[in-house]
């Protein structure tokens, strides 16, 4: 049996003195495509934000393996490992934020961060663009001219170029037209196929999409959690 990439142990989240979810346990395995479902307000976004520690962990722990250690031991996250962890587990919000400049400026900007040891390379990006039937011109477009869907594609490329192990996708296609939605799904598919140790966690209001892009689900039910594995 393969060992998990990421483990959530007894996570809990309180909002106004009420537990939104508590004692939440699950694992993400290599090649896992997991849907995170539940009614509005059940805390799906909060869970994804907690998984990358944009919100503090109020209860429980998140364990993640460091590739470089070469061991199967998953260690709980601590302060000093957060920035490294975030290059491997990337959260993509529903409304992507872009920085001034061109699409390519945005892609390059990520590599100016201290934690990024790599350098910007154009060819993998061109490869992805090819999948989307988009030309190189997309890279020189100013972000001001991008539609909502194109911004989402930019955000996705910006994350994928880091070759993360896990993507946490928060309604990535909620405001997109069917064509762009299909392109986004295609991009994620291609990234998943790129290596064996990758996994993703999706939220979506569209049950058909969840059926289409995931192979198992975690359900948040407001006050308590029916966490199927």
């Amino acid at each position, binding site marked *: 049996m393969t060992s998990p990439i990421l483990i959530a142990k007894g996570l809990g989240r309180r909002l106004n003195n009420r537990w939104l979810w508590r004692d939440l346990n699950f694992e993400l395995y290599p090649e896992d495509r997991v849907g995170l479902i539940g009614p509005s307000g059940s805390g799906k976004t909060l869970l994804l934000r907690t998984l*990358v*520690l*944009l*919100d*503090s962990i109020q209860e429980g722990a998140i364990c993640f393996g460091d590739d470089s250690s070469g061991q199967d031991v998953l260690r709980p996250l601590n*302060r000093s490992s*957060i*920035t*490294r962890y*975030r*290059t491997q587990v*990337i*959260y*993509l*919000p529903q*409304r*992507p*934020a872009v*920085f001034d400049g061109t699409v390519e400026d945005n892609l390059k900007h*990520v590599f100016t*961060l*201290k*934690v*990024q040891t790599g350098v910007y390379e154009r060819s993998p990006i061109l490869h992805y663009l090819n999948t989307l039937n988009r030309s190189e011109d997309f890279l020189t477009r100013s972000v001001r001219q991008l539609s909502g869907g194109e911004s989402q594609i930019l*955000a996705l490329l*910006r*994350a994928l170029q*880091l070759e993360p192990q896990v993507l946490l996708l928060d309604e990535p296609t909620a405001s997109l037209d069917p064509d762009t939605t299909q392109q986004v799904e295609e991009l994620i598919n291609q990234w998943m196929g790129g290596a064996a140790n990758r996994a993703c966690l999706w939220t979506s209001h569209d049950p058909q999409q969840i059926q289409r892009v995931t192979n198992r689900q975690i359900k948040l039910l407001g006050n308590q959690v029916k966490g199927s594995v």
Partner: protein
Amino acid sequence: MQDYIVLGYGQLALAALLILVNLVLSIVLKLGLERSLCIATLRTVVQLLLIGFVLEWLFGQDNPFIVLAIALGMTAIAASASINRTQRRFSGMYWDSLLSILATAGFITGISLIGIVRVDPWYDPQYLIPLLGMILGNTLNGISLGLDRFMTNLIDQQPQIETLLTLGATRWEAVHQQMRDAIRTGMIPIVNSMMVVGLVSLPGMMTGQILAGANPIDAVRYQIILMFMIASGTALGTFGVVLLAFNTLLVPHQLRLDRLSSSS
């Protein structure tokens, strides 16, 4: 000898008639400022007369501790004024402001008194109090503007900041642009006034000295030193308070907007 006209209370009363202009305007244009104007006028008179008596008494003192105690009191009031008009607040904001303003004003006033003006004794209240007052008054503006801008930036640009964080940025990398912008905002007023000083505006202190009979060239020298003190004080104070706010509102490596509340 006295080579300036000593003003009596009757003359003050005459000058108070000038405020009638504001009152009439406020009534005719329905600005609703009558109450505030009356209170402000009264406060101007009472506060300044009071400080006049205090200074007269203080200048007679030769005890560094009394002078320092007064200086500390002024600093504490400046710190609270600096955070009174920000749109948002966080707990500990007053202490952050007090710490930056105290360190800045202490440092700048200290080196100016001892190193530049070379006052003897160093705590001579005739020099220490007015210089400190000028630094405090201006530094608190810088702190107020810088702090307000920094908090607004964090809220407006939360998506960008968090995006950088999710891509592995440290908290410093994620917000250094917002910090730079806030510090720049705090420094704009003093840079502006250094640009036009003497051309458009005659600074209050210099005007006062000249009216009181000082040689204009002497008054100008004081003013130049003062402008430089204010400029460096504002820069240091704003930098300090933004740094402290950064430390509260960004923990490694999260943006903690939940620590901000709006002040109403």
